[in-house]
């Protein structure tokens, strides 16, 4: 991982951390590599939407499954994070009059993104084994 290397490079022969490493550590803490709950949902909604997926259909797909309205801004923020993690790629389309002369931003799940989704599903399935049932809840 690049972040780890940066941290190691700054340590001197006494293995002491320098002041700047404080900021590197904080940044590494922020740049998580695993998928958050909402990111996973957005990525799954993107995969379900298929080709020509852009913000509006992705958010509608997500809203249909969640059964409540979704903020488009939060969908775009999650897609941006997913793109930085290499799970999603995007491309700008042509501006259209239907959108007030603004272009669509098409998203597509990458191979790394698909791998990440499968990996997360395996981990979650293993974790869900032996989940105690809620009292009074129907199975």
């Amino acid at each position: 991982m690049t972040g780890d290397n940066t941290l190691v490079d700054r340590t001197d022969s006494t293995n002491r951390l320098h002041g700047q490493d404080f900021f590197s550590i904080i940044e590494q803490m922020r740049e998580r590599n695993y998928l958050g709950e909402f990111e996973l949902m957005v990525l799954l909604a993107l995969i379900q939407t298929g080709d020509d997926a852009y913000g509006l259909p992705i958010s509608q797909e997500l809203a249909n499954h969640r059964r409540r309205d979704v903020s488009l801004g939060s969908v775009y923020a999650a897609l941006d994070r997913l793109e930085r993690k290499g799970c999603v790629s995007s491309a700008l389309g042509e501006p259209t009059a239907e959108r007030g002369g603004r272009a669509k931003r098409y998203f597509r799940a990458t191979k790394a993104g698909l791998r990440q989704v499968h990996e997360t599903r395996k981990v979650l399935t293993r974790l869900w084994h032996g989940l105690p049932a809620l009292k009074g809840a129907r199975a």
Partner: protein
Amino acid sequence: MKQVNPPAAATWLLEHMTKNEALAGDLFEGYQHGRSAGWYWRQVMAALAIRFSEGLGDRWPAVVFAALWSAMPFPWWWRFVVRREDILTGYVVVFPWPYSMICFLALSIASAVAFVWLGLALCLLFGCLKRTVRRPRVLRALRASLLIFVPLQFGVVLLSLSAARINQELLLVFSHFCFFVPLLVSAWLGLPAAGGAASSPAPS
């Protein structure tokens, strides 16, 4: 009857504060497909809140710096406000009115600007250790600090000189706030984002 175009004020805010063309287009399309003006406003407000919180996360050093530097004691500036009589009778008053007042205001504001710029210089210098701070960013930060700070300081000094009896502690809190806001804005503009461009589209 529903308007053909979405609320102009919300669109203006969205376009100027988020600079996300794709999001603006999606919201426009959603509105054209029957969504209400209330939905449009809610989406815009949520997008702005998300953009702001992401900005805070990416530029947290600017926030920390502004809070620390504005909380620091700055006796040589505060002296101008609290002990204004000493200064007025000391050397400014040697000038005839209104030059004495102009001189007092200029001295007060110049010393405060020097305090802010010293802090900003340290902040940007520290920022250079981590990332490249480019000249246009520095100039933008300096310009913003002047544009916001000078009117605010003008207000603080005038308040301190006003005949009305003002609570000194309240004035001190207000003056800290007047240091915090321009420092935050200028450091925010001067320092590059920690996590890269947060919301700008990156077409591939």
